[in-house]
């Protein structure tokens, strides 16, 4: 059986479960404009399900957040099987200008992270390059009527005209979803924020920029603790930057951060107030004979994610995804090639800046599969148990309701088969940088520039 990353392996008999346990991804929904002219503000910059998967949030370059809610499956509308529809939208960040440095601060939402739900309202953190905001999204479906001092329009009633008192009653009203900024965490980052991560204690969260990581308390906005600082005394000596950071899902004292040199450091906040000294250092040794001008650039880690179990973590570099066992620092336990065929295109990818694209990656709810994006609106999924992998495409052509997605193949050799696409025909402007997997079900959200695709597994 061919084991190259280009081929979808032949299906194997599922162990235990009757039939196949392969995913059969089907188109479910697509959101966004169809026209070719993409406004910069509409480019989606982050996608995130909440803890239950009921809500799906997107952030865009224009600083806006759109939240979708999954419809309850009902007998009245059997066809809208768990569809996501708009729940709330708001302007999270606006463009600012730093007059001192003559720099524009983009309103682009870099990351959204949900807080675990504790009451009827939903909370999320959204961040741009400099400022993190805590948003409360709450529902209102009742309003009080029959006030004594004001009439229904809100105008004050003349107190001398009031002869009787009445008790206001709560009347149902059309559901209104309100988003309000509850906390603004500003002025703590000199460099550009790349990550935020809510801690398992549900009280603190971390924010990371190129050189520093800060720990915040969700209630306190006027101070934060600096827990990592890799800024050298002399900036000429700068050799690496922080590219991503995440809190451990269960151990509130542990977090990791990745670097532009392809290394990951795990830190324990119990060890010291300033975690400049790591507790664990993860790096895969490089073969010195393969070192090239591109080595460091393509080894730069663009995303790091803990598994839900907390036992593994996954890193994404330019060409691959690696799964690391937290107990083994000297090499990853699994490596998956995302688009190895790009190795022979690195020169032009450097010239058009694509080599600096930051792809994200994500786990499914059971940690048995991982997903990441590629070019030409392709995205890749890897099943960790069966070692099967598949390439799918997010496109309007495959957007018939419940249509099964056909696997895609990229051809590097001379002979191109009928349904394959050659490397030179790939559209490098169609990049899938942001994907998200529902925490419990096989539902995925894929951001393709300005469109959001939602796919579901047929078995769902």
């Amino acid at each position, binding site marked *: 059986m*061919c084991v*190259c990353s*280009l081929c979808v392996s032949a299906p194997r008999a599922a162990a235990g479960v009757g039939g196949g346990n392969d995913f059969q991804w089907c188109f479910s929904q697509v*959101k*966004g*404009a169809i026209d070719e002219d993409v*406004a910069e*503000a*509409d480019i*989606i910059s982050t996608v995130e399900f909440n803890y239950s998967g009921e809500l799906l949030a*997107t952030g*865009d370059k*224009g600083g*806006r957040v*759109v939240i979708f809610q999954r419809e309850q499956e009902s007998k009245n509308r059997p066809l809208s099987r768990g569809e996501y529809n*708009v729940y709330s*939208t708001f*302007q999270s960040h*606006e463009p600012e*200008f730093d007059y001192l440095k*003559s*720099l*524009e*601060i983009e309103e682009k939402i870099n990351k959204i992270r949900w807080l675990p739900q504790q009451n009827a309202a939903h909370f999320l953190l959204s961040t741009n390059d400099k400022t993190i905001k805590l948003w409360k999204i709450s529902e209102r479906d009742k309003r009080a009527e029959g006030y004594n001092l004001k009439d229904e329009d809100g105008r004050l009633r003349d107190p001398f005209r009031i002869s009787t008192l009445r008790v206001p009653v709560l009347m149902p009203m059309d559901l209104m979803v309100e988003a309000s900024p509850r906390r603004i965490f500003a002025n703590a980052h000199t*460099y*550009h924020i790349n990550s935020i991560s809510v801690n398992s204690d549900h009280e603190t969260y971390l924010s990371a920029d*190129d*050189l520093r990581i800060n720990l915040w308390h969700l209630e306190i906005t006027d101070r934060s603790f600096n827990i990592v600082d890799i800024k050298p005394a002399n*900036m*000429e000596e*700068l*050799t*690496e*930057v922080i590219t991503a950071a995440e809190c451990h899902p269960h151990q509130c004292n542990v977090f990791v951060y990745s670097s*532009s040199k392809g290394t990951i450091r795990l830190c324990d906040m119990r060890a010291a107030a300033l975690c400049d000294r790591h507790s664990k250092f993860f790096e895969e040794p490089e073969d010195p*004979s*393969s070192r*090239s*001008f*591109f*080595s*460091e*650039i393509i080894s730069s880690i663009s995303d790091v994610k803990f598994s839900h179990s907390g036992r593994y973590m996954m890193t994404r570099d330019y060409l691959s995804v690696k799964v690391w066992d937290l107990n083994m620092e000297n090499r990853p336990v699994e490596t998956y090639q995302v688009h*190895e*065929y790009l*190795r*022979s295109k*690195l*020169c032009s990818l*450097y*010239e058009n800046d694509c080599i600096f694209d930051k792809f994200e990656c994500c786990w499914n709810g059971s940690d048995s599969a991982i997903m990441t994006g590629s070019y030409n609106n392709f995205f890749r999924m890897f099943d960790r148990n069966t070692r099967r992998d598949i390439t799918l495409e997010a496109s309007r052509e495959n957007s018939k309701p419940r249509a099964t997605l056909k696997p895609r*193949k*990229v*051809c*590097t*050799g001379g002979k*191109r088969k009928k349904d*394959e696409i050659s490397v030179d025909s790939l559209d490098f402007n169609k990049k899938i940088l942001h994907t998200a997997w529902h925490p419990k079900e096989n539902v995925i959200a894929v951001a393709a520039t*300005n469109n*959001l695709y939602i796919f579901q597994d047929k078995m769902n």
Partner: protein
Amino acid sequence: PNCSGEWSRPATETQDPNSNPVKTEEAKLKAKYPNLGQKPGGSDFLMKRLQKGQKYFDSGDYNMAKAKMKNKQLPAATGPEKSIVTGDHIPTPQDLPQRKSSLVTSKLVG
């Protein structure tokens, strides 16, 4: 193997640099841009990254740079010369971005 695509071995497994696609790409790049920084992926890239952000038109810097360059065109801040981060690479009045459009609802809302 019955795959139709070319199975390209990882760079580490080959001894011959001629068949290493990455080395070929590196040679291509060096041929095009011989002055490219000696420190690959070193501090020049990182400094550029740290300074990401639209630098606005500053007439003082602009006129100084213009005086230095004399009659030559001011270079645009694009291309692989990523090591140059300041001074000569300030936007010229022609390069200034258009005024941002008014805040509108996202098209995802439909």
